[in-house]
């Protein structure tokens, strides 16, 4: 009795799995998982938004002041402590402090923070400001103030040359 009941339960779960798994991303959706961007035309101090996996990715050419500001913050002051160097490194472990690449999705509830376009409000920490619930990010894309729990995510990327970056 117990054995056949257990078998039935295993069978039921095994049958349910394809239906649940069916809702996961399809192969063609997964296939869109990397893009290549030429960053040559982004001047120092400027930033652009590119679309990757249906989400905005911010690529920011940081000024020396912005880099300095990001590097000098004490880790103890950060809600989600992470050094600036750890956020500007590509998959080949090469650190490029002038290029900050982050996913432009607020870690609170998924809005796109302002601060990439010229004239956008950048918040008190000179990075990004999320208009939905007031989260503020610094010049390293780290959360400094507001309800967001984490720093803006850094996607896996690789510079194949000084001006060509592959995201994903």
């Amino acid at each position, binding site marked *: 009795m117990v054995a056949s009941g257990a078998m039935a339960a295993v069978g039921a779960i095994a049958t349910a799995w394809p239906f649940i798994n069916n809702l996961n991303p399809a192969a063609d959706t997964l296939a869109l998982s990397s893009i290549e961007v030429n960053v040559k035309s982004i001047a120092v101090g400027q930033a652009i938004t590119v679309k990757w996996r249906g989400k905005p990715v911010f690529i920011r050419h940081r000024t020396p002041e912005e880099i300095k500001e990001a590097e000098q913050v004490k880790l103890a002051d950060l809600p989600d402590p992470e050094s600036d160097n750890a956020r500007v490194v590509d998959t080949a472990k090469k650190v490029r402090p002038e290029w900050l690449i982050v996913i432009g999705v607020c870690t609170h509830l*998924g*809005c796109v923070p302002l601060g990439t376009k010229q004239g956008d409000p950048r918040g008190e920490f000179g990075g990004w400001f999320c208009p939905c619930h007031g989260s503020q990010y610094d010049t390293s894309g780290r959360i400094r103030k507001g*309800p967001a729990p984490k720093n803006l995510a850094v996607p896996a990327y690789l510079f194949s040359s000084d001006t060509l970056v592959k995201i994903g």
Partner: protein
Amino acid sequence: MASSHGAPPVFKNKVVAWIDYRLPIFSYIEKEYHTFPTPRNFNYFWNFGAIATVMLVLMIATGIVLATNYTPHATLAFDSVERIMRDVPSGWLVRYLHMTGASFFFIAVYIHIFRGLYYGSYKAPRELLWILGVVILLLMMATAFMGYVLPWGQMSFWGATVITNLFSAIPVVGDAVVTWLWGGFAIDNPTLNRFYALHYLLPFVIVAVVALHVVALHVHGSNNPLGIDPKGPQDTVPFHPYYTMKDGFGVLCFMIVYAAFVFFAPNYLGDVANYIPADPMVTPTHIVPEWYFLPFYAILRAIPDKLGGVICMFGSIAVLFVVPWLDTSRVRSCTFRPIYKWFVFVLVIDAIVLGICGAHPPEGWYVPVSRIGTFYYFFHFLILLPVLGKIERPLPLPPSIADAVLKKKAG
């Protein structure tokens, strides 16, 4: 409850009798909707169950008609809705009926819930009836949310983003759950497709739960404004014609207000930003849900912690499930509860204040006010309801419904 209105019906029409002998649908209608003994003292609050049922049928009817012209695809959905508005014969009317109908369905259901809270309709032996009602509310919320995504406007897209991201607050598996919900790395065509499938399915699930709700209702019959059980035929009247007429009148009055909005202010209850096509790269400066979600949205934002906010928001509905056991009072109706009755009104004001907070950006005064409002909401259910039932001294109950009704008439 034994019927006080005579023996099983005899049908004169031979066809009806033939069918009823084999499938007793006519006996059922006769018993449950004609002779069904119903308390004689209902006030107009007892109309809203019938009104909500009519709205459900109307939403399904308009929804099916809309579905014949709607295209559930990220690149075509917005234009197909505009085509319904401009080119499809009477399309504008059917869509406005559906859109405004959602709001009026919630109005009817919220008044229906208030009625239950004020008159203690959730108390024994109607606990399961009440719980089925909360299940219907949850299903309605899910259906309304997914329906709002279908026009694929800015508010559709970003509302869906914010709400689905609530699940990312779940520890460890949160992000995997959100990817699973989306069917991708962001809200996109797979999300729209599954929301459309579910938006079409869930109303029929609601119909099924409503049927159970009605079955549970007809076991012990309706509660009434006095909250005391009918003691005999002198306390009840047959459902038809008395309450079919009264419900009909109530439905008609409700429809007048509803039609006024449909024809003269169809967009008053919605957000203009939803007439801008969805853009995954640009967030509108101010994301607000539809008005019927605002108090819950305010609760979500009142808590400074992401997971805490999500728990409180779902908790504000979940707490309703246990209301029958949180209320310790031995009388049902607030008519005889001199203290608690005022707190029910305070709860209504609290919900309205939370709604106003939810409609505004979370800055300045709205932050502390929404925190106080959230605190009070839970205080009402978790502290006030159990404690007050113990210490409050209810007014003396009348000996019977007939006695109270006739005395009122004489006095």
